[in-house]
């Protein structure tokens, strides 16, 4: 029995060989490029986490170590940094594309909502990532940002207090920002990506049934 004929592999193979309607081609390719960049972020993030130490005393040394002493460390950190910017640009482009093509009206209304949530999540991921170098600029940026967040009604004070981990920005803040960046937000983003993929498959199925 060939491997291709067995269970999940067969489903995967048939999915891989499915025809893509010309109307969905651009959406699919854009979404898959964003997914590729997301995987690149995860892979480079895991590699960086091997050496990064989220403690105010050692953080600078660990970043220096990654950039100077670890083989290809500068490439991994650079890729992580620039792919985050690329994700933001592509997510923004995808949202604008849906807006100007007007596809939020019908078949792609879920893409519009999920696209906005993915963009928001990517912004939060990038911003928390920028703070992890924990230098003078990052310290004061998070201090000012949390002051601004505190002025936001309803959830502002609570969010600022939870992230800060006390009255002042400290080692706890760095630890919490690291947790949010590396544990919470990637999973939220992954759930959104799975939903997006599921809705896209539904759209393709409906289009196929309508044709047949």
């Amino acid at each position, binding site marked *: 029995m060939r491997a291709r004929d067995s269970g999940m592999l067969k489903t995967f193979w048939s999915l891989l060989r*499915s025809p893509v*309607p010309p109307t969905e081609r651009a959406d699919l390719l854009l979404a898959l490029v964003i997914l590729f960049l997301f995987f690149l972020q995860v892979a480079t993030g895991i590699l960086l986490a091997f050496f990064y130490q989220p403690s105010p005393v050692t953080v600078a040394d660990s970043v220096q170590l990654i950039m100077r002493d670890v083989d290809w460390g*500068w490439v991994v950190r650079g890729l992580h940094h620039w*792919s985050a910017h690329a994700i933001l640009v592509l997510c923004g482009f995808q949202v604008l594309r849906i807006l100007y093509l007007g596809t939020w009206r019908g078949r792609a209304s879920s893409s519009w909502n999920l696209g906005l949530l993915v963009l928001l999540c990517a912004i939060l991921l990038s911003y928390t990532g920028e703070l992890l170098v924990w230098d003078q600029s990052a310290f004061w940026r998070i201090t000012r940002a949390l002051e601004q967040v505190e002025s936001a009604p309803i959830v502002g004070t609570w969010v600022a207090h939870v992230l800060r981990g006390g009255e002042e920005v400290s080692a706890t803040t760095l630890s919490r920002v690291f947790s949010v960046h590396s544990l919470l937000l990637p999973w939220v983003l992954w759930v959104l990506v799975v939903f997006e993929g599921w809705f896209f498959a539904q759209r393709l199925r409906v289009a196929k049934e309508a*044709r047949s």
Partner: protein
Amino acid sequence: MILVLKPGTQGPELAEVLRELEKRGIQGHVLPGGTKPLVHLVSGPTRRARKLLKLEQVEALVPTSGPRVRLSGRRFYPYHFTNLAALCLVLTGVLVLLAGNFPPGLGDAIDPQHAPESLSYPWYVRAPLSFVALFPHSWAWLGWMCLYALGLAALLMPVLDRPGEKAASNWPRIVGTLVLLGWLYLTFGGAVR
């Protein structure tokens, strides 16, 4: 390249297809006989004829060489997969170049007593922070409320602009363009840099 039309396509429907071809600068003529009407595309930018697959009358596009493009589209593997792999490879190359030429830096050591004279924020958060900064400090909550409302309105757009209307409204595009222009202005010219 040959355009295969649905059986029974004739008269004004056929004329519409020919008009669309003419609009794209493609010359073609209808082939006589057969159960399905066929249009032979003889000259002009025939690659543009792919867009005609969106027309109801068109069933398929058969190139004289290469794979057949059906209305249902090309298979993901190998056609789109190859394009995607090439695109990702190029993108990775560009990112490595950026990483080499513009490596993310590491700033000065933290001084919790003295804030730096100028504090730069990443480009993607400048707009919302600049927007909130437009309001006096005691009214900052109003700025955040406006941002919440904008986000909520954006999420609810498929409900606010209901589908199925006879003429699709254009207001979301206009509002979206205004928000985009405002966003760009606040990013590059706002109070927070």
